[in-house]
């Protein structure tokens, strides 16, 4: 890289990380101040771990994200398989545009629209509050589904169409052919889709805000409620922990990727050497 490029990249990284660095530093501040660092202390971390509401919100978030990711991955993969085989042009276009809606629409509209329907249906049944864990799960599955489909469809299109047919010619039932021949081929797409669904669900605030009931709080909603009033650096401690969890996960996945690339390279090299040895 040229020097100017290096300086520019460094500036942008400072812009991206300075706010996060400030949170990290002030989470260890002894005093409550946000501008003067008066001394190192783990006080806010202790307080965070005593905050049962926040801990409960973490648990809720994880339960919701796992459930939403699993259900949307199964349904989305099935949908992609079906859409890939769909011959009816109009039905395909209709499904495609329906799938695109949650991705194009602003979150606030998706959230409001689902909330209005839940409230209306709830009123039909005479319920006072119709928003709960169930409505939130439905909403999360809904906004995750398009991303799963979008990851799986291209893998299906790349796959050799003769593969499942060959399996069935050899006596597999269609279901067995799918699990034995098709699924392994599209697995990378399925897994990426599931990870995306999981992280989208973990991170979502806007749609959850409109579709959550009083009893069920996720972490983003908890953070929102915490920042509504004057904030204690407890929130910074929470942000710091989140940051390090993300950093670790990304590093692991990066190392894993690199290892895979390395292994593939070695394999190729071995093959080449074997070939050369033969000739």
């Amino acid at each position, binding site marked *: 890289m040229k020097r100017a490029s290096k300086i520019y990249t460094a500036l942008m990284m400072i812009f991206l*990380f300075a706010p996060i660095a400030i949170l990290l530093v002030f989470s260890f501040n002894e005093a409550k101040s946000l501008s003067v660092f008066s001394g190192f202390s783990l006080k806010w971390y202790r307080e965070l771990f005593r905050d049962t509401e926040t801990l409960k919100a973490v648990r809720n978030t994880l339960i919701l994200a796992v459930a939403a990711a699993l259900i949307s991955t199964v349904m989305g993969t099935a949908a992609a398989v079906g859409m890939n085989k769909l011959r009816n042009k109009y039905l395909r276009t209709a499904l495609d545009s329906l*799938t695109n809606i949650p991705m194009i629409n*602003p979150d606030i509209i998706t959230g409001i629209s689902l909330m209005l329907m839940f409230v209306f249906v709830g009123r039909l049944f005479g319920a006072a509050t119709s928003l709960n864990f169930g409505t939130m799960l439905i909403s999360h599955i809904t906004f995750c589904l398009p991303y799963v489909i979008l990851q799986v469809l291209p893998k299906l299109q790349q796959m050799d169409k003769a593969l499942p047919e060959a399996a069935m010619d050899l006596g597999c039932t269609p279901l067995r052919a*799918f699990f034995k021949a098709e699924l392994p081929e599209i697995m990378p797409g399925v897994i990426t889709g599931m990870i995306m669904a999981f992280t989208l669900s973990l991170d979502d605030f806007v749609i959850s805000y409109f579709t959550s009931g009083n009893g069920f709080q996720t972490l983003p909603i908890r953070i929102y409620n915490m920042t509504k009033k004057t904030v204690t650096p407890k929130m910074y401690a929470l*942000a710091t922990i989140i940051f390090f969890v993300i950093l670790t996960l990304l590093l692991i996945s990066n190392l894993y990727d690199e290892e895979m690339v390395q292994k593939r390279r070695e394999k190729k090299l071995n093959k080449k050497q074997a070939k050369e040895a033969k000739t």
Partner: protein
Amino acid sequence: MNNKTRSVIQRMTLTPYSIWAVLFIAVPLLFVAYYAFTDSAFHFTFDNITRFFTATSQIDDGETVREVHTYLVIFWRSLKLAIISTFFCLLMGYPLAYIMARAESRTQNILLTLIMIPMWMNFLIRTYAWMTILQDTGILNGFLSVLHLPRIHIIGTESAVVIGMVYDYFPYMVLPIYSIMAKLDVKLLEAASDLGCPAVSVLRRVIWPLSLPGVLSGITMVLIPSISTFYISQKLGNGKFFLIGDAIEGQYVANNLHFAAAIAFILMVILLVCMALFTKLANRKIIVA
């Protein structure tokens, strides 16, 4: 595969999703329209829509009291701030995407990971971090007074909201542009400069047009969330001025669901029309290029 098994598989795989998509994607949008055009007793009315265009309120700026259209002012402000934020994201993000795409593959991966880390942190936390920095007694002013420079008042102004939006949505601009630029054929650039094209012209006449698809998807990915946000303006604007998202959220909190639906409906229609025009224009431009 015979036709019978094909249709069985199709029904098995597609039915659950089709039902789900109609029930939870299409029907809720109909409910937005239904609420927007009814009053609290669910009788048909245009009142909510006309209220958006005609409701007025008074602004007292210290000297004079002016009467303004409440929601039209809010809408134009949202649009203005979103466009300014998108512009700055593009201005700052385009060079970064270019530098990344030209770097060694290892550096590329590191930079990519670095850009994605803030994206994975919740935008509430990121916005809150900026509130800490920009406050009158915050870190920025502390820093300025250490340097014996005059303090600045920025929290609660439109600039603070723009800073928050640019920071929150910056990665959404860089990533699509980068992914297009990384695929760009280097031979094209070499050919252009070999044929005597000066560097600036290579950028303007070769790289820029080829990267347009990435730029366009970056613009939509920044513009849409920033026009509809409601947290950033509340925190960094100090609740002093509203954006369209705040208006919707405020009506929801006040339990005026019908008017909330009306604002959401109008926003949705305007965005749809803009997106349709934008893609049409973009497609023509890309074909010309």
